């Protein structure tokens, strides 16, 4: 098995794609009832199953979470490689990570195995295919908890069935600014799709990013789940595109002014909080998609969103940095990353 290129179309709006499968071992109790000894045994059994494929083994790192310092663990949370709950847990935990970070397998999170494959742009099928390959590998050696009626058995009944959570992260600045998001969220909810946005002070979503994912896991096959999500994602993308075109046609001066001001701040500021940086990068992304800004690609922009996280800044520049110092390093990092590259 080779680690495929996890990349897809629509990067102007689709930041990333993620496929997650929840699996448990039949012969071990679920997380809350699992002893430390059982957890160690289970981790060893899962390692062994994954190491049966030599090509895969060579690209995977097997990490005991207790061997990592808190800051590194927090930086993994910021990069969406592990969940905040997994980071906080005091149980025996292990993380299996591919070198390119597209595969991340949490062992002994809420479920025994939380396997996820991530890609950039819209690439649901590619990520699903890779997740299925990993699942087949686990299935060869391990006795997975399964019931013909309820599918894969999970700690929480909300994940029963396929154990699949498929999600895409979308950048929707115009839908946000035109107040169309609330209606979209309500419509998506009616057909079993959840839309999550994180809001800061006031009503503007931070970074204007939203996570769109399936709510139900029982009664829909993996393929159906992914196709339904793809269907609604395509509709949201086309609505956002229509609004972007209209905004450029009707208020080009204001539109350009905002994008170029944000670009200038990113290239010159000396102190920058994470939330300010997220908002400015949102404008920059919009500027790139409308052809106003050149010289930087979406993948670089995506890595920047992770790199500006407080723990990621601290990991690179010294673990004991006070917040104000972090803001200075963040501003410096953004200046260095953008200054010589951005072109109008």
């Amino acid at each position, binding site marked *: 098995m080779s680690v495929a290129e996890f990349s897809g179309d629509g990067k102007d709006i689709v930041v990333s794609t*993620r496929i*997650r499968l929840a699996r448990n071992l039949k012969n*071990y*109790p*679920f997380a*809350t*009832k699992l002893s430390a000894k059982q957890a160690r045994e289970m981790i060893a059994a899962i390692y062994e199953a994954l190491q049966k494929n030599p090509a895969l083994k060579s690209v995977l790192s097997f990490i005991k979470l207790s061997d990592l310092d808190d800051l590194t663990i927090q930086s993994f949370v*910021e990069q*969406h490689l*592990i*969940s*905040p*709950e*997994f980071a906080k847990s005091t149980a025996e935990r292990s993380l299996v990570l591919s070198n390119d970070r597209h595969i991340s397998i949490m062992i002994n*999170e*809420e479920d025994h195995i939380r396997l996820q494959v991530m890609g950039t742009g819209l690439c649901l099928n590619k990520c699903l295919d890779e997740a*299925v390959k990993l*699942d087949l590998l686990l*299935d060869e050696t391990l*006795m997975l*908890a*399964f*019931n*013909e*009626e*309820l*599918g*894969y*058995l999970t*700690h*929480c*009944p*909300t*994940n*029963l*069935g*396929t154990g*699949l*959570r498929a*999600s895409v992260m979308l950048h929707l600045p115009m839908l946000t600014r035109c107040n169309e998001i609330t209606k979209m*969220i309500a419509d998506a*909810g009616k057909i079993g799709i*959840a*839309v*999550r*946005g*994180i*809001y*800061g002070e006031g*009503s503007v979503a931070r970074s204007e*990013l939203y*996570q769109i994912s399936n*709510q*139900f896991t*029982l*009664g*829909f*096959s*993996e393929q159906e789940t992914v196709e339904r999500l793809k269907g609604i994602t395509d509709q949201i993308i086309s609505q956002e595109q229509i609004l972007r075109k209209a905004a450029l046609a009707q208020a080009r001066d204001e539109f350009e002014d905002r994008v170029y001001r944000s670009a200038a701040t990113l290239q010159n500021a000396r102190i920058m909080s994470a939330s300010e940086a997220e908002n400015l990068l949102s404008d920059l992304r919009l500027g790139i998609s409308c052809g106003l800004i050149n010289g930087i690609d979406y993948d670089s922009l995506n890595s920047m969103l992770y790199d500006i*996280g407080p723990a990621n800044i601290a990991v690179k520049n010294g673990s004991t940095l006070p917040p104000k110092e972090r803001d200075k390093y963040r501003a410096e990092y953004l200046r260095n990353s953008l200054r010589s590259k951005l072109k109008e």
Partner: protein
Amino acid sequence: MLCENCKKNQATTYLKTVISGEAREMRLCDECAKNFGGFNFFSSGFGLDGILSGLLGQYNTSQKKPAGINSCPVCGSTLEDFSESGRVGCANCYDVFYENLMPYIRRIHGSAVHSGRIPKRIESSPKRRIQALESELAQAVAAQEYERAAQIRDELKALKEGDQK
């Protein structure tokens, strides 16, 4: 104002989340804001966990317990444990408390029959193989492919005999 989560430190951050159209506002301290802020790709239930445990809580007061079974013989979990946490203790709990859990599982998912991938050991089980052959037999008969139907019938017969041994 104190942080609404830990109720210890001064609240410094206002956080508004909207999940499936439901808005939630919180005033948090720096530490708690760190945990709540940003995307949590991993949270499983979209707020359904709470609903589920609520539903199971209703069970405890309105319905009877399964006769003679108070706890799962494998992990020791009780129905009270489920109603508190919204989570079962082990795979076996789904069998032990089947009757009690099913109405709630149906309410959460709207459907209660798995459709999707299955482990190899189940896929190749005689029961599954017999089901698949029976549907192939029906198709062969409908298409008047009698020679093929006879082959399938023989294979089915052998499988069923093997299953009984």
